[in-house]
């Protein structure tokens, strides 16, 4: 049996396909050369060094640790952010885990998987979402809603120690030694 309304839907379908085409072409751009596989940076270094940084700097309930993506507190991302970090003292991966309960291995694994996904957006770690998002735009970073109370991105420049740590892990380089005591990390 023919659907009597299909003729009315054709124009909307065509418009939809057109929009998809425009959005797709503007978001995806040129495919990376050679279609490289997802990077797999060191898992142990992530757990020991990177995850604590993500917990400290990203996993706030107002940021990438939103405990309730569908909450009613005016979150402009009701579907939840893609990049999410959970852990002790923050929102937990499982709702039944107490906020102060010890670290759950699944939380590290989830953060690791999301982090390497943030690296898979490009063929160059320096232009990946993971490296670019927390860096100031005028220093080569990317737009990031995570501006602080002073309107700045997480890391002011590429010399910032924490940024260098994140980048080193993302790019498969040795983690740089910490700065001397008393120096801004």
């Amino acid at each position: 049996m023919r659907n009597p309304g299909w003729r009315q839907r054709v124009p909307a379908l065509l418009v939809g396909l057109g929009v998809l085409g425009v959005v797709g072409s503007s978001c995806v751009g040129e495919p990376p050369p050679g279609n490289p596989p997802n990077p797999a940076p060191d898992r142990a270094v992530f757990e020991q060094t990177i995850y604590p940084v993500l917990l400290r700097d990203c996993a706030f309930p107002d940021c990438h640790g939103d405990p309730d993506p569908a909450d009613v507190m005016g979150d402009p991302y009701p579907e939840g952010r893609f990049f999410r970090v959970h852990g002790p003292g923050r929102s937990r991966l499982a709702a039944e885990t107490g906020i102060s309960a010890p670290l759950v291995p699944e939380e590290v694994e989830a953060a690791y998987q999301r982090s390497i996904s943030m690296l898979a957006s490009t063929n160059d770690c320096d232009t990946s979402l993971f490296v670019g998002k927390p860096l100031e735009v005028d220093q080569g970073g990317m737009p990031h809603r995570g501006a602080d109370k002073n309107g700045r991105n997480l890391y002011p420049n590429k010399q910032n120690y924490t940024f260098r740590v994140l980048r080193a892990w993302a790019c498969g380089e040795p983690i740089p030694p910490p700065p001397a005591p008393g120096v801004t990390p």
Partner: protein
Amino acid sequence: MPLSLREVSRWALAAALVLGGVPSAHAFTTMASFNKAAIEGGGGGRHFTGSPRDGQDCSVCHRGGTEPTVMVTGLPEEGFDVERSYTFDFRWAGDFLGAILVEVVDGEGRGAGTMAALAPGELSPEETCAAGGGGIVVALNDQRQVIGTDACGLSRLRARWTAPNTGIEQINVYASFVAGNRSADPRGDGVILLKRAFPIRGGSARGPQVGSGCQAAPSSGQGAPWAALGFLSTALVLRRRRLLRRGQ
């Protein structure tokens, strides 16, 4: 038989419940928790005063509650004098568990002057925790010093700040306050951030000016673009729902 880390944690929690009653499940109820490693549930060194070297204030975690009022006196309203001591006096009242973090920095975000807690003999009852003690000073990198309180039921913090003797022309005072609702998480807590700039006596201040001298006011400003985004997304959702309804 050796116990695993998880088993030890469970036993420790059980012991805490038995010995100390139900502990607050809130992660940042003490000043010490801000210096605790992030992987252990601490701040990893961040203190959330809202000052430039930290960036965030309490509202990055706590939200949803009624905005509290904090009365402030003792700030150098006429400009500060070199090496003179000032006693900042923060007071709050209400059916909540208040906690405050205060910091004084220069234009670059480095610590300015020295901060000290009052001696035990100077503390009034409303600024003394049941277990003793009041304001706690923590030293950080870049000469920064943060004074704050545990969330132990206080309603007052006095901080003794001594102006620097170097060539600092202006100081910026940051005070971040949480009115906790005694729940197990940061939801439902009220937050307020005070930002004030004071020049050396005879100078003129530029920079953060949020909150009057005697009463902290809401942090200003940067919500407008997000409000616009919120309106836009709401409009899109409503439009989608309308279209779906028509389609049915």
